[in-house]
Every structure is written in C-alpha cells, then in structure tokens.
C-alpha cells in the first residue's frame, strides 16, 4: 500500500499481480527476509536422510503415527514457550511443571480414585496456579524471569517428588469401554471418513482466512496478495495434509492428541494475530516502555502469559502421561524443556522478544521430534543423540542469526 503522492525514487515501486509478487518475494529473500524457508529446507533434508538411513521405515505409516503421538506433548509445551519468548522473557520451568501437573493428575486419578475429567482439571489448575505464582513474583518484585523460573525449576522438582510419594511411579488405568480415561487422549484414533473430515475442516480454515481477508481488503481498496498465490499456497498445504492423513489412516489413523494440538495452535494463533491481547504481547516484546506509555497494562499481560504458559505446560505433561500410560519421578525432566525451547527457536521465534508465531512452534516441533525419532530408529547411543541434537539447535540458531544479520544491513 503506497501512501505517497509523489514517488520517492528510492522506494521500489510495487508491481501488481503475480509477477510483482514474485519479484517482491525474490527481493525479500535476497535481503534475508526468509521467513520459514530454512526450516522447511532443513525438514526436507532431515526426512531424506532418515528415510534413506532407516531403509524406508522413517516415513512409513507406523512410524508417522508414532511421530504424531510424540509431537503433541512437547509441542503443546512449546506453544507456551513461544508466548513467553514473544515477551522477551524465559520460562525454565516449562518442563518440570509439565511433570508436576501430570503427577498431580495421576495422584487425583489413581490414588484418590477420581474420574479422569476431574483429574485432568486438577492438573490444569495446578499449572495455572504455578503460572500465577511465578508471574506474580516476576512482576511484583521486578525479578528477571530467568532467576524466578530457575528457582522454580528446582523447587517444583522437589514438589513433584513429594507428590509422587515413596513409590515414585503411578501407572494410569488402561482403556475402559464405559468411561473416558486419561490414556484415551493418546489412545483414541480417527480413521476413514472421520480422519478426512478433520483434514477437510483444517484445510477449510487454512483457505478461508486468506480468502476472506482478500475480499475485505479488495472491497476497501487496499493492496492484496494475488489470489493465485493464495490458491497455490492452500493447494500445497492441502496436498501435504491429505498425503499425511492418507499415510496415518493406513496405520492406526489420526490421533486425538494431534487433533487437540492442532486445534490449540489454530486458537492461539488467532488470539496472537487477531486480538488486541495478542497485539499487546508483541508490543511488550518489541518495546515494553512504548507499550506502557500507550496504556497497555504491561505487568498484567506478563502475568497472564506466565499463567498461559504454565497451563499449556500442564496440558503437555498430561498428554505425555497419557501416551506413556504412567507418571514417574523423571516426568518432564531431561530433554523436555530443552526440546520445547528448541522447537520454538528452530521455528524462528526470537529469544529477544517480539518476533515469532505459534505456527513456528509446530514447524519446530516437527523438526526436533523428527530428529529424535529418526535417531531412535537408528538405535543411536544417548551420547551420540545428545551431541547431534545440540549441533542441530546450534546450526538452526546460527542460520537464523546470519540471515537476520543480512536483514539488518538491508534495513528490514
């Protein structure tokens, strides 16, 4: 959209239509504004490598279903981490809180013999309470979130051990024909028409948003993306999604936890991009002082985001418990936190705040989980796996940093 009456010769005039759009895209690539391109290229490379080294098992339908099961738990935690990173803060408790809330859920469900929905609610509220406590502490006393959540990392681990009691492991009940159990979250699969119906719903959402925007902007006389581009993009996503559903359907089908995870991403993406609350988060991450002067209740938004992140961590932890059918003393520890942060960062969320999206968490978790899953298929030693995961994270962040440096010099 140009608001210039006389044209500034330094400003590259936008051409109309597809040709102009492609020219603009090429220019942005040359300036380092690459968007999700490196992640997508990286993902294709990772899939190719594992597909060859695992002799075709990696992209086989059985393994793809496993991959979706593994993704949902850490992916949900990672969505919360994205919110925190957008503010320019950090939450080191994302992993341990997921374990703690899963433990609370298991205690309520098994030891106290309450129905699964009550147990899930108890786990969720535990996450909310932890987030409220940490958010309050960070905003009320002005302590950096790094320090408060570092203390939390240790403290909540203690609480997790305390909650689990001397036995240290709680097994969750298996599938029951009459009532819903926690393990059904990961044990329920949609197949056939139901699976394709869900895929169609997803594609309708992906296509409808841009088309409605296109119509509204066109009617208001604003600049629009060429309709062909919108259609092509939807087409590519459509082919990929249908191919994935076809593969999943030929094994156990589309998992409930995956559906919940995607629904969470769609919902959270809508909140971030379209609501005033989302705009507040980006504004605080960009310039907290400017946000404060514009009348945004900075401390309240910060507290709410910490509450959201811990609640999402709780959901991730309970999904993980549902998949493993048990909660033990190591729940939410080890690589959970690092994978959640790595997924957000690999997807292009800046550690310095104000830049990133929830879709980045999806792309990031696919990359991180593919690597972890692929290495498991190759039965690599843990020692090798840790080193490779570290190397991949470093590479992703370096690619990002180098490309953004190119961006800075071209002023974008």
């Amino acid at each position, binding site marked *: *959209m*140009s*608001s*210039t*009456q006389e044209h*500034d010769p330094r*400003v590259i005039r*936008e051409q109309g239509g597809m040709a102009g759009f492609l020219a603009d895209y090429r220019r942005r690539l040359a300036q380092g504004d690459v968007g999700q391109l490196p992640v997508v290229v990286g993902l294709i490379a990772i899939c190719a490598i594992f597909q060859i080294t695992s002799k075709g098992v990696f992209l086989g339908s059985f393994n793809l279903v496993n991959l979706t099961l593994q993704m949902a738990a850490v992916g949900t935690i990672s969505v919360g981490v994205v919110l925190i990173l957008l503010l320019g803060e950090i939450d080191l408790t994302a992993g341990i809180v997921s374990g703690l809330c899963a433990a609370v859920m298991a205690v309520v469900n098994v030891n106290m013999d309450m129905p699964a929905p009550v147990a899930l609610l108890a786990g969720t509220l535990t996450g909310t309470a932890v987030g409220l406590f940490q958010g309050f502490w960070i905003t009320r006393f002005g302590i950096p979130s790094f320090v408060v959540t570092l203390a939390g990392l240790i403290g909540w681990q203690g609480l997790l051990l305390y909650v689990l009691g001397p036995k240290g492991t709680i097994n969750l009940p298996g599938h029951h024909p009459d009532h819903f159990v926690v393990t059904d979250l990961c044990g329920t699969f949609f197949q056939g028409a139901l699976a394709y119906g869900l895929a169609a719903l997803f594609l309708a959402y992906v296509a409808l948003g841009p088309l409605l*925007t296109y119509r*509204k*902007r066109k009617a*208001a*006389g*604003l600049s629009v993306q060429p309709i062909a581009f919108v259609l092509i993009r939807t087409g590519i996503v459509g082919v990929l999604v249908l191919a994935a559903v076809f593969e999943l359907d030929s094994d156990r089908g589309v998992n409930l936890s995956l559906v919940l995870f995607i629904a969470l991403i769609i919902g959270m993406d809508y*909140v971030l991009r*379209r*609501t*005033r*609350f989302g*705009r*507040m988060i*980006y*504004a605080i*991450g*960009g*310039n907290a*002082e*400017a*946000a404060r*002067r*514009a*009348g*945004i209740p900075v401390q309240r938004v910060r507290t709410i985001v910490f509450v959201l992140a811990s609640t999402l961590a709780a959901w991730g932890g309970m999904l993980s418990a549902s998949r493993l059918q048990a909660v033990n003393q190591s729940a939410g520890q080890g690589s959970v936190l690092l994978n959640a942060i790595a997924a957000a960062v690999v997807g292009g969320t800046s550690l310095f705040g*104000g*830049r990133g999206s929830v879709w980045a968490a999806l792309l990031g978790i696919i990359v991180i989980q593919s690597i972890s899953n692929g290495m498991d298929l190759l039965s690599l030693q843990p020692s090798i796996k840790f080193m490779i995961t570290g190397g991949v994270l470093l590479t992703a962040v370096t690619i990002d940093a180098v490309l953004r440096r190119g961006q800075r010099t071209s*002023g*974008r």
Partner: protein
Amino acid sequence: MSTAAQERTPLLELRGISKRFGAVQALTDVAFDVHPGEVVALVGDNGAGKSTLIKIISGIYPADEGTFLWEGRPVTIRTPNDSTALGIATVYQDLALCDNLDVVGNLFLGRETARPRGPLGVMDEVEMETRAVAVLRRLSVKIPNVRIPIASLSGGQRQSVAVARSVMGENKVVFLDEPTAALGVAQTKEVLALVKRLREEGHGVVIISHNMVDVFEVADRICVLRLGRRVGTYDAKKVGREQLVGLMTGALTGLAGDEDRPAQAEPAP
C-alpha cells in the same frame, strides 16, 4: 497568526508552576500558555527546566504549586491519565515506537479498533489500515508501505509516525520534545512541514528545541526558560536569534516585547 490566536481562550494555560526536587528548585513560578492553531517554542539551555515543565504537563510528576486551565476551566493534572484524558499528547525524544510492529500497529497501539471492545476484541485490520493511510495522507507523511515494520523506516519517517500517532485520538495539544534532534536536512524539513500542518488543523503545538533555525522556522511565539524561571515570551517575528541566545544564556535579562510584561515593552534606544 499569533495575534488572532491571542484573542481566543488558550487551550492550555499554566500559572505559577513551581517544582522542587530535594535541594533543587527545578521550576519557580512559571507561566505558560498555548492557543489552538499556534506553534509555541519552549527554549532554554540545559537545566532550564524544559523537561520538568513537560513532565508536569504530561502528569509524570505533579507540580508542587500552580494552577492549570484547560480551555479556560481550572483542571488538575496529577497523573499521565489526567493529561491524556484532557487531550494532551507528548512525543518524547525516544519516540516510544515498537520496532517489530508495522506502521498501522504503531499508530493504533493501545487503541486498536476491535470488536467487541476490550482486550479480547478482534482487531479490524482493514478499518485500521484505511484510517492510518487517510491520516498519513492528510498530514502528507510519506511512508512507502504502512505494512512494513517500523524498524525499516528512516529517522524522519519514524518521527513522523510518532507525531501522527499523537494526533490519532482527540488530542488538541501536542508536545514535541526535540523532534529534529537526530535528523538530516531533508528529514528535518519533512517533520517541520508536519508541525505546520498540525497548526493548520487547529492543534496547539509546543516544540522543545535547541535548534534556533527550526524554532524560527515554525514557531509563532517563543517562551524562554532559564534556571527554572521564565525569562519571557516573545513574538517569533519580533525577536532576533542573537537576542534569543542572550536570553537563554543570561547575557540578556529581558527584552522589549515580552507579552507577559507589557509595562516594560519599550524598545531600548
């Protein structure tokens, strides 16, 4: 311009403002006024009290003594909300823009058009963009694309966006703190043209500047502060640059034509 403006009630009038910080008397008995459709320059050397005065008017510190009149009615300004509720906007030197948001996002920051109202309202991007483009066009602000992040704009464009944002609401008085301090020649010209356009639209504009060329270019009246006291207020057409510098540094203690002391208004031979 200034004589016509004088006959009307000032938009904002301050009388007898004093402010003390510990052992420092930052302002003593300062009076100040700005009319609709007028640019007043607030000048003074470092430590003269310009920033303190601005911060009192924008409600960052309450004044120890003094009265405020808004369109002739007495009002109190003790918090930033009091000031913005009256219709006073301040553009500080650091601009307070979010580099990661685009021009539209910054223009509407904190007052996005959304339905339903409230923080969970869904923003109407089309409406906001249409209005943003209209405001920028009205003020002849040249921005290549209102959907690119603020970080990629030039200093003059950023300043223009910050100024445009200050008049997005119902604001009547705009304070600009050193608006041209970091700008090149062409960009300075752009921003000063913007200041003149705000005057044409009937805003009261107060510009704080060290740059005498800029002050004489846009100001109708010039208010001189020195060591926390008001030296005088002068018609910009009737005062010379050397005289102004003399008043600011204390080489001159007063000058013919001080509007507030008409008794002394006899030119020295």
